[in-house]
């Protein structure tokens, strides 16, 4: 194959074979034991630590870091997993720069926080590498719970429920468990099939059965789940994708960024993946960044993220934005798509400049066009196929603080449920807390 970044259109194999290995390797390599000791030693062991407050799963960060510093990373891992059973994945994908590390007092003091995410990874990797599962299942309760979705929320709920002695069955629409951990995370953040290894490790608790390829509403109904189980937890995420609402959106090579990311994650041979020479990504979140950076890593010559609002409004963190720009991605803000041009397939995208006004975002009369032979839409996901009868608010299943929905016996958490940010770590917290409430309700 003799394609290069300059090859017109959408083409695979734009780079030499070795580049794909290099580009999709772990982008933040794990700490060596000595590095971990040094990094751990920077922790001040704060009183009522701000990092812990900032963590959606409330991991006792000062304690686990001290356990690393004193040479007991296994104990550190247990401290982490007690609060967040997906602490391994969260260590890789959490926007720590907006959570624990932003709150770290050393960020205040020196602009250089303790590397909490990397330390968490060191601890969790150390224990998981031993194949040890640190928790044991409680006495069987005889109760069964159905969990919909084998993503972060569902897995966290299932693990906690299994730990309490309940029998759990997880139904997931996809062929593999993991949810966004498996299908929605940039490849270089989760290498070495980590999402699947993590699920296997989590299942060692026992008492959890996963049925893949079983979608709620298609293969199984909520009524059936309710009839067959003592409780139901919904954690199926957001399967729908927002539309651009720009003329020509249906042209060829216009894709949802989430599909591109999922395809990339599942592809064994990245060189076989076709990518445009000129790629445009529309959106301002982590999905946009993941799609844009990976397009670049696949060999696209020009990749541009276009976001309709100002830079400060982008939900991708400053760290993520920097990651994108250092990979060679251009970020254009305050521009909204108005039309997709091209004869069959996309050739150009036309944008109007925008302005934030007290009345909302206004598009101006002036437009510009970007060359594009591939266009990715990363403008947010939506709840689709929510079961009838559940109260929905703000496009999500309405839940209270413990995850209870409007129907008794049905709980929900993660991205599909109201409240909290759409983050892996938030989903884990919601799944865990709903599980505790389910347990209380079942045993009460």
């Amino acid at each position, binding site marked *: 194959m003799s394609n290069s970044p300059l090859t017109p259109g959408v083409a695979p194999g734009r780079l030499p074979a070795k580049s794909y290995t290099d580009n999709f390797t772990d982008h933040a390599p794990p700490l060596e034991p*000595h590095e971990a000791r*040094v990094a751990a030693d920077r922790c001040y062991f704060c009183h009522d630590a701000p990092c812990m407050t900032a963590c959606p799963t409330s991991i006792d960060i000062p304690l686990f870091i001290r356990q690393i510093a004193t040479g007991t990373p296994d104990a550190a891992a247990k401290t982490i997993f007690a609060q967040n059973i997906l602490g391994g994945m969260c260590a890789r994908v959490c926007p720590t720069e907006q959570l624990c590390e932003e709150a770290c007092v050393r960020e205040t003091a020196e602009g250089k926080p303790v590397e909490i995410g990397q330390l968490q990874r060191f601890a969790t990797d150390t224990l998981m590498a031993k194949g040890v599962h640190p928790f044991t299942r409680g006495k069987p309760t005889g109760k069964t719970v159905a969990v919909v979705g084998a993503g972060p929320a569902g897995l966290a709920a299932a693990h906690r429920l299994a730990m309490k002695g309940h029998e759990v069955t997880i139904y997931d629409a996809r062929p593999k468990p993991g949810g966004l951990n498996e299908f929605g995370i940039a490849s270089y953040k989760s290498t070495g099939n980590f999402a699947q290894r993590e699920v296997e490790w989590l299942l060692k608790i026992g008492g959890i059965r996963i049925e893949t390829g079983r979608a709620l509403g298609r293969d199984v109904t909520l009524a059936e789940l309710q009839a067959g189980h003592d409780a139901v937890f919904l954690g199926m995420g957001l399967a729908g994708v927002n539309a651009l609402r720009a003329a020509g959106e249906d042209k060829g090579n216009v894709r949802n960024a989430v599909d591109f990311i999922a395809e990339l994650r599942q592809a064994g041979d990245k060189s076989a993946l076709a990518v445009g020479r000129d790629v445009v990504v529309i959106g301002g979140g982590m999905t946009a960044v993941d799609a844009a950076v990976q397009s670049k890593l696949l060999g696209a010559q020009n990749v541009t993220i276009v976001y309709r609002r100002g830079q400060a409004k982008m939900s991708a963190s400053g760290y993520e934005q920097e990651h994108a720009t250092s990979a060679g991605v251009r970020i254009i803000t305050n521009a909204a798509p108005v039309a997709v041009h091209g004869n069959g397939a996309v050739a150009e995208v036309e944008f109007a400049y925008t302005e934030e006004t007290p009345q909302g975002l206004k598009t101006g009369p002036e437009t510009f066009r970007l060359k594009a032979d591939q266009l990715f839409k990363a403008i947010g996901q939506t709840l689709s196929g929510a079961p009838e009868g559940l109260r929905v608010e703000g496009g999500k299943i309405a839940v209270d603080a413990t995850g209870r929905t409007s129907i008794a016996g049905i709980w929900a958490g993660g991205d599909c449920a109201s409240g909290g940010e759409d983050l892996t770590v938030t989903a884990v917290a919601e799944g865990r807390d709903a599980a505790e409430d389910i347990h209380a309700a079942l045993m009460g």
Partner: protein
Amino acid sequence: MANLTTDFIGIKSPNPFWLASAPPTDKKYNVERAYEAGWGGVVWKTLGSEGPPVVNVSGPRYGAIWGADRRLLGLNNIELITDRPLEVNLREIKEVKRKWRDRALIISLMVPCDEDSWKDILGRIADTEADGVELNFGCPHGMAERGMGSAVGQVPEYIEMVTRWVKKHSRMPCIVKLTPNITDVRKPAEAAHRGGADAVSLINTINSITSVNLDEFSPEPMIDGKGTHGGYCGPAVKPIALNMVAEIARNPVTHGMPISGIGGVTTWRDAAEFMALGAGNVQVCTAAMTYGFKVVQEMISGLSQYLDDKEMSVSDLVGRAVPNVTDWQYLNLNYVTKAQISQADCIKCGRCYAACEDTSHQAIAMSADRTFTVKDDECVACNLCVNVCPVENCITMVQLPQGALDERTGRKVTEYANWTTHPNNPSTRAAE
């Protein structure tokens, strides 16, 4: 650049930084490299009697403790005196001294506790042209089991006796090196003084076990499954050494006797502290063993800059803090300070709060937004918050002026008064 030349008991050196008698000074090769790096003087590693040299272990000789990033904080060793033939050492000493006239070269000695042994060794070193001798009454391991080293240093009468022999059989300036493994360092120093020593040097290493191997259940360093106590040195021992130097410097019996300060000197600042407490120069070992001989260059530039900044000479510095070392009973009980937290510098870690609330006087308040403030009516000014605060000078101790109200006691700050006159002191009442 300040003139760092020192004259210590008549021994001149271009700076007050000497390498202590230890592994770095065991042979010509090392000593010449040390001089090339800039060391002002060297105390040659301890020589023993004529005859078959001592034997060292062939397993590990050192144990250590570390701080962050494996920074070496304390080192201990079980190495004995030189294990090279006496005539080799003597020949090399002579060669080195002839070549390096401007540097100090002292010979450390340790021989059995009888006059003939001392007379013999002093005779053998007489023509080396070395500048002086240091009597090793300090090594706490190995040699002490044979009645030498700290076994002598722990008995003031022996110190006095041997020092007399040395002064009787040699015209060389004589430094007596003291062991810290005693209860009152003033006693051996007084004995050295009585025996006619020109100076004392201290501290030698401290009896120690640095760590225990929790798999083999043996002290480290471990030799074939067993360990023995070694001599502890390095930054960790500095506070102990400073106190011992100060005790000798302020003791009326030994006040003014030259002191060579040893114990954890790692930077120019450490050296300046020893000198302020009365040391005429300092000896260094662990810092060189950790960083190599070049480390002296920072000590030279640092001390020089400090003296320039203070417009002081070396002799102005030596002993300058001694008058301010006193007994607890003379401390001003009417000196009242309160901790003050600079909100601009505070990073809100809460360590001061945890320390005060859990282990001290509940004198720091914490608000919902993590603002930490001192409760003046509870603060006893213990300084723990200052010590645990990770930000230097974020918490400071502010003195209440005379006449100000101490909210804790409800009393106004008055003039100087100490325990000797305090009404709660039983001796004060007895005297009335």
